[in-house]
C-alpha cells in the first residue's frame, strides 16, 4: 500500500476534489443530487413519512374515494380511497429495488463479456459481439415484452426480462474501452512480465473502465425505472395491489379528465426520478472528464 502522502495518493486526492468541484459547480448536477437524495430518502422511510402506510394494500379509506388533492391527501386518493402520495412513495421503493437488482446482475455480465471480447480478439471477439449485436438489434421494450410473454407477469420475471436486454449495452461500452486500453503500454508491460489474463482484465484494464461504468450506471437507474414502468403501463409488469408507478398511470388514465390527479402525479413521479438520476449522471460524466 502507498503512504497517504505518496505522490500517487496525493494526485488521486487532488483529482477527486477537482471532480467534486466540477460536479458542484454545475447547478443542474446539484439539483439532480437533491432530487435523487430526496426520492431515495422518501422511499426508504416511506412507512414513517406517510400517515397512511396501510394504503399500500388493496384497501383504502372508503369515506374518501376519488378525492381531489387536499391537505389530508396531498395528491388525492384513488377509486377505492387510497392515498396517492403513499402509493407513489411505495412505488418508488419498488422501482428503486428493481433498478438495483437489474443493474447488479446485468452490469457484471456485460462488463465481463466486454472485457473478454475486447482483450481476446479473434473468434471470441467475433462471436461474443455478434451475440451482443443481436440483442441490440431488437427494440429494448419489444424484447422485454417478448420475454414477459413467455413467462408469468411477476416482479421477478419483470426484472429478469429487463436484465436480459440490459447487459448488451455494458458489453458494447466496455468492449470499446477495452479495445483502446489493450493497446496501452501498461497492458503490454503486464503481459511482458507474464501476468495472467484474469489479472490483466480485472486488475489492469477494469480499473480504467470504472468512470464509464459508474456514469452509465447512474444514468441507468433512471432508465431501468423508465423501462420497468413502461412494461407495467402495458399491463406486463407487477400485478395489483402492489403499488407501481407505471400501472398507476395506466389505471388513472381510465378516469381522465375528471380525476386527473390519478394520472398526473404518478406520471410526474416517474419523470422526476429519471430526471434526477440523469442530471447526476451527466454531472458525473463531466466531473470525470475534469478529473482527467
Amino acid at each position: 500500500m502507498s503512504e497517504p502522502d505518496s505522490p500517487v495518493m496525493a494526485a488521486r486526492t487532488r483529482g477527486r476534489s477537482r471532480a467534486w468541484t466540477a460536479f458542484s459547480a454545475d447547478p443542474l448536477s446539484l439539483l439532480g443530487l437533491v432530487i435523487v437524495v430526496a426520492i431515495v430518502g422518501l422511499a426508504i422511510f416511506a412507512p414513517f413519512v406517510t400517515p397512511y402506510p396501510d394504503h399500500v394494500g388493496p384497501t383504502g379509506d372508503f369515506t374518501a374515494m376519488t378525492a381531489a388533492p387536499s391537505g389530508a391527501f396531498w395528491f388525492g386518493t384513488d377509486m377505492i380511497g387510497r392515498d396517492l402520495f403513499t402509493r407513489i412513495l411505495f412505488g418508488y421503493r419498488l422501482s428503486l429495488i428493481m433498478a438495483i437488482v437489474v443493474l447488479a446482475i446485468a452490469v457484471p455480465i456485460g462488463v465481463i463479456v466486454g472485457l473478454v471480447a475486447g482483450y481476446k480478439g479473434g473468434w471470441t471477439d467475433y462471436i461474443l459481439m455478434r451475440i451482443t449485436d443481436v440483442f441490440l438489434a431488437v427494440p429494448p421494450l419489444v424484447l422485454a415484452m417478448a420475454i414477459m410473454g413467455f413467462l408469468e407477469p411477476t416482479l421477478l420475471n419483470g426484472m429478469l426480462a429487463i436484465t436480459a436486454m440490459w447487459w448488451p449495452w455494458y458489453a458494447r461500452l466496455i468492449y470499446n474501452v477495452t479495445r483502446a486500453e489493450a493497446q496501452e503500454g501498461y497492458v503490454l508491460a503486464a503481459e511482458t512480465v507474464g501476468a495472467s489474463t484474469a489479472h490483466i482484465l480485472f486488475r489492469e484494464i477494469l480499473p480504467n473502465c470504472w468512470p464509464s461504468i459508474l456514469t452509465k450506471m447512474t444514468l441507468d437507474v433512471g432508465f431501468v425505472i423508465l423501462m420497468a414502468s413502461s412494461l407495467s403501463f402495458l399491463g406486463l409488469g407487477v400485478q395489483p395491489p402492489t403499488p407501481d408507478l407505471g400501472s398507476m398511470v395506466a389505471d388513472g388514465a381510465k378516469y381522465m379528465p375528471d380525476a386527473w390527479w390519478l394520472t398526473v402525479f404518478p406520471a410526474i413521479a416517474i419523470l422526476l426520478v429519471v430526471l434526477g438520476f440523469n442530471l447526476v449522471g451527466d454531472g458525473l460524466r463531466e466531473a470525470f472528464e475534469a478529473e482527467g
Partner: protein
Amino acid sequence: MSNILRSLLHRLGAALIVMIGISMLIFAIARVMPGDPARIALGPNATAEQVAALRLERHLDAPLPVQYWEFVKSVATGDLGKSLYTNRPVTTDIAQFLPATLELVFVSGILMVLIGLPIGILSAHYRGRFPDHVGRLISLLGVCTPAFVWGVILQLVLGYFWGWFPIEGQLSQSVTAAPAVTGFMLVDMAIAGNGAGFLDALHHLILPALALAMSGLGQTARLTRSNMNEVYERPYVEMARAYGFPARRIATRYAFRPALIPTLTILGLEFAAMLGNAFLVEKVFGWPGLSRYGVEVILRKDLDAIVGTVLVIAAAFLIVNIIVDILVNIINPRIRLAAGRA
C-alpha cells in the same frame, strides 16, 4: 460506384447475420418456456389428438436444430403460423395492424428531425444564453420522460382541457375510412382524393406522433447542439468569423453540415426506440396499430403471434437502420471518399 455497391452488400450481409441471430434468440426463448408449445398454441380446449397432430406437424419431437430449421423454412416461405387470439394467420393480422404503427413512427421521425434539429442549432448559436437554456430543458425533459407520460400529459392538456386535438382513435366517427390501398391512412385518404378525411386523419395523428417523437427529439437536439459547439471551435469557423462572414451563413453553411453527420447516425437507433415506444403511445391514444394486438397476444400466450410480431418489428428496425446507413454514406463525403479509395 461498385465500391458503394460492395459496402451496401456488406451491410446487407451483416444485417442478414443479425436477423438469423434474432430468429435463433426468439426461437430459443419460445422453446425454453415451461409447458408444451403445442398445448399452449392450441389452447386449453384442444383434445390430446389435436395436440399430438400439431406436435407432429411442427416437428416438436425432433431434435432442436431440426425444429429450428423447420421454423426457418416456414418463416422464409412467409408462414408465421396461426394466431390463437384472432384465429387467423399471423401474417394477416400483422398486415392489418402494422401500417398504422409504421405511419405513426414515420410521422414521429419527421417531427423528431424537424423540431429537434432547429432546437439544437439555436441552442448552439445562442450558447449559454436564454434560447440555449430553453432548448436544453426541452431536450432533457424529452429524454427523461417515458413516451406514455408525454402521451397522457399532452392528451390531458391539449385534448381534454383545451380541446385542440381529438382524444383518441385514428379518425372521427363521422369520417369514413378511405379504401385501404397502402394501409397508411394519410396516403389512402390522399389517393381517394378525400381532402377533409386527410385533414381529419392528420389532426388525429399529431398528438400521438408528438408524444412518440419527444424522446428522439430531445436526443437529436442534444447531439446537434454538442456537435455544432465542437465545430464552432474549429479553425476554419474562426477564420470565417475573422473574415466577417454573416453569423447565419456560418451557422448554416459551415457548422451545420459537419455537425449533421454524427447526428444522422443515431437517428437509426432513435427509430428503433420509437418502434418499441409506439406500443406505449398507441395504448394511450387507442391507436389501431400493433400495440393492442401485441399486448393481447402476450397476455394470452399466443405463441406464433408473439414470435411473428417480434420478428417483424426486428426486421423493420434492421431495414430502417440500413436506410439510415445509406443516407449517411450519401451525405458524408469522407466516408464516400474512403469507400472510393478502398
